[in-house]
C-alpha cells in the first residue's frame, strides 16, 4: 500500500500484466507509457519491454485499435491508449468488429484486448473538437464490448487488471482530468469487477448517480447536502456496459428519488439509461437528470464553466427533489 497517482497506479497494473505475459503488447501514440511516483521506481514500458512489444505509432487511432484487435485474434493480449483527439476514430472497428466478432462467429473469436480511450472536456479554453465526453454513450450503446470508466486511482488500477485479464474486448474510458488524483493503492495486483457499480456513500433521502470525471462534483454535492442534514446515497457507475441495474434499482427503491448526473451531453448520456432502468423498475419514484447541455463546449471559460454541472448545481437540483 503506497500513496500513488492515478497514472502510476494504472501503469503498475499494465507493467504487472506485461511481465506476466511475454506476448502482451501495448500501442501508444502521444503519451509514452512512463510514470513516476515518490518512493517508487519509474515505470517505462517502452524501455522495459522493448519496441517490438511497446510501439509508438503515427497518427492513426483506427490502426491502433484495429491492430490490437488483430493481435487478440492471433492469440496475444494487447492494449492501446488512444488520445482524446482520436476518441471517435476507432468507433466503427469497435462497434462493428470487436463488439460483434465473438457472437458472429458462434463464440469462436477470442479478443482479450483493451481499448483505453482518453476523455476530456474538462479544460476551459479547449473548445468543441477538443472535448470528447460524448464517446461514452457511443461505446456504451454497442453490444459485445465491456465499457468501464474509473473515477479513483484504486479503481483505475483494479479495473485495468480486470480489463487486461478479461477475454472480452474492453473499452476502458480514461478521464484525463483525474490523472493526477492520488490515494493509497495496493502494490499487488487486484481486480475491480467490470460489471459492478460502487456505492460511495449510503443514505436514505436521495440517490445521486454519476461516473468518471463527474464523480468529484457528485461527491462534492453529497458533502454540501450532508452538511445540510440530508442523507444522500452516492453511486459511481464504474461499469457503463453491462450496467449494474441491481445496485441502482436497490438504491432508488430505498430512497424513492434519483438524480443522475452526466458531464456529457444531456440527450442519451449514460444518465438517460440510469433513469430509464430505474423508472422501469421502481414505480412512483421521482427522477431527474442534470448534464452538460446538448451543445459543444465553448472555449470561453465564462461560458464553459457555467454550462458544466458542478457540485453546487447538483446540490441545488437535489434540494428541489426532497
Amino acid at each position, binding site marked *: 500500500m503506497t500513496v500513488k497517482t492515478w497514472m502510476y497506479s494504472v501503469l503498475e497494473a499494465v507493467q504487472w500484466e506485461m511481465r506476466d505475459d*511475454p*506476448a502482451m*503488447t501495448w500501442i501508444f501514440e502521444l503519451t509514452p507509457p512512463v510514470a513516476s511516483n515518490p518512493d517508487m521506481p519509474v515505470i517505462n514500458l517502452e524501455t522495459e519491454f522493448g519496441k*517490438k*512489444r511497446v*510501439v509508438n*505509432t*503515427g497518427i*492513426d487511432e*483506427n*490502426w491502433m485499435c*484495429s*491492430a*490490437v*484487435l*488483430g*493481435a*487478440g*485474434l*492471433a*492469440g*496475444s493480449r*494487447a492494449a492501446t491508449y488512444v488520445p482524446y483527439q482520436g476518441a471517435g476514430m476507432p468507433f*466503427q*472497428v469497435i462497434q*462493428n*468488429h470487436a463488439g460483434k*466478432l*465473438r*457472437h*458472429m*462467429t*458462434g*463464440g*469462436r*473469436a*477470442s479478443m482479450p484486448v483493451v481499448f483505453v480511450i482518453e476523455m476530456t472536456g474538462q479544460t476551459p479554453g479547449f473548445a468543441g473538437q477538443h472535448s470528447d465526453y460524448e464517446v461514452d454513450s457511443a461505446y456504451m450503446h454497442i*453490444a*459485445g464490448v*465491456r465499457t468501464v470508466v474509473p473515477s479513483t486511482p484504486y479503481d483505475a488500477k483494479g479495473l485495468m487488471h480486470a480489463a487486461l485479464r*478479461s*477475454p*472480452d474486448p474492453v473499452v476502458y474510458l480514461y478521464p484525463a482530468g483525474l490523472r493526477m488524483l492520488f490515494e493509497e493503492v495496493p502494490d499487488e495486483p487486484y481486480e475491480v469487477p467490470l460489471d459492478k457499480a460502487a456505492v460511495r456513500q449510503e443514505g436514505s433521502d436521495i440517490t445521486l448517480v454519476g461516473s468518471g470525471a463527474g464523480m468529484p462534483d457528485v461527491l462534492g454535492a453529497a458533502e454540501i447536502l450532508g452538511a445540510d442534514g440530508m442523507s444522500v446515497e452516492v453511486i459511481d457507475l464504474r461499469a457503463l456496459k*453491462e450496467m449494474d441495474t441491481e445496485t441502482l434499482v436497490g438504491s432508488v427503491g430505498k430512497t424513492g428519488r434519483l438524480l443522475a448526473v452526466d458531464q456529457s451531453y444531456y440527450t442519451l448520456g449514460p444518465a438517460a439509461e440510469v433513469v430509464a432502468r430505474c423508472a422501469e423498475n421502481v414505480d412512483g419514484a421521482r427522477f431527474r437528470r442534470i448534464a452538460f447541455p446538448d451543445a459543444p463546449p465553448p472555449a470561453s471559460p465564462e461560458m464553459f464553466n457555467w454550462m458544466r454541472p458542478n457540485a453546487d448545481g447538483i446540490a441545488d437540483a437535489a434540494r428541489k427533489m426532497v
Partner: protein
Amino acid sequence: MSNDMTPDTERQRGGMSRRGFLQIATLAGAAAGFTGTLARSENEIGYYAMDLSDDTLRHMLRTILRIRWHERTMADKMLSDPSYRAYNHFYAGQEAVATGVCAALRNDGPFDQIDLVYSTHRPTGHAIAKGVDMAKMQAEFDFRATGLNNGYAAEMHISDPDVGFIGADGMIGPGHVIATGSAFAFRARGSDQVSVVFGGDGTYATPHFHSALNNARLLDLPFIYVLENNLYHQYAHYSHSCPHADIADAARAYGIPARVVDGQDVFQVYNAAKEAVDRARAGGGPSFIEAKTYRYYNHWGAPGAEVGKLGAFGYDPLAISSFRPERELRSWMQRDPVDIARATLIDWGVMDETTADTMETDVRAEVDAAFAWAAEQPLCTPEDGLKHVFAEGVVAPRQMA
C-alpha cells in the same frame, strides 16, 4: 495447352530440368492462346511450384475443383430449390488465387504456429483452400445449429481458427488493418507465423488501404496483402476508384515488394505467395500480390445464371454504364483456372486425363454429400441468440415484457 504429354515414368523427381522447361513452354502456350486478356505475369519470380511434390500438386487441383463444384452446386440449389435458404457471393473464376496462396501457408498445427488468413464478403474459396470443413461450412451457410459457427455467422462471417481461418469480414477495409495487428503480434512474440489478408480491387479506395500498408512497412510486419483484382466492385469498374492500372504500384510506393500475377494460373500465384511467405518468415517484412482475375457470377447471388451452366450472363439490373460486358466475361472464361491447372499437371505428367476425371468425379460426390449433410442438420434454438455476446453468460432478453 498444346504440349505433348509426359510419360509417367519420366516425372519422378522435382528436379530442375523437365519442369523448368515445361513451365516456360506452358506459359508461352498460355500467352499465345490468350492474348488480349488482362492477366499478366512477372516472369522473374522463382518457379517454386516445380519443386512441389506430386501429392501437393494434385491437392492444389483438387482444391480448385472442390471450390468450383461447391460454387456450382450452390448456384444450382439457389436456382432450383425453393427451400434452400442460403445466400452467397460467388467465387467461381477466382479459385486459383485462394488455392495458390493457401498452398504456400502453414494450415495445420497448434494455433500459435499456423498462418492466419483474413477473408472477405466472398469467403468460400479462401475457406476451402485454408482447410475449412466443407460440410460444416455449408451447414453454416444454411443457418444450422451444427454449422461451422452454430448458425450465428452465415456466409459473410464464417470463421474457423482451428485451421487459421480467422474468417470472412463483410466490411470493405477494416479487415486489412486488423490483419496487420495479427502480424504485429507475431513479430512481438517472436513467432514466424504470417498474416495474410485477401481483398478485392474495391479495397484500394478505402482509407484502410493506406493504414494497412504504411504500418506494415514501418513495422516490417510479416503481412501479405493479396489483392484479387477482378476488375469490378459491385457494379463499378475499378478504374472508377483507382488511378493505377496495377494496384500493385500503389503498394510499391510504400517500398513494399509487390507482384502482379496471372490469377488464373494457380502455379504463378503459388510462386508469388511462396516468395512472400519466405520473406515474411525470414523477417523481411510485408509483401503485396495483385492477382488479375475475374468472377463468373454477379456480385451477389445467382441472377443471370442457369441451372447446370457455369457463369451468369446478361445481367445488368441497374443499366450501369461501367458494368461488365458479357463478352469480357466470356473472354475470361477461356482461361479457366480449372482448365489451366488440370492441363498443366497433365502436361507435367503429374496425372493423366483419366486420373483427372476421377478426381473431379470424387470431388462432385464429396460436394453433394456435404450439401446433403448440411440440409439435414438441426435448426437453431431461438434463445441461443443471447449467448456468445461475452465469453461467459447470456444477455437478458429485452424483446418481451
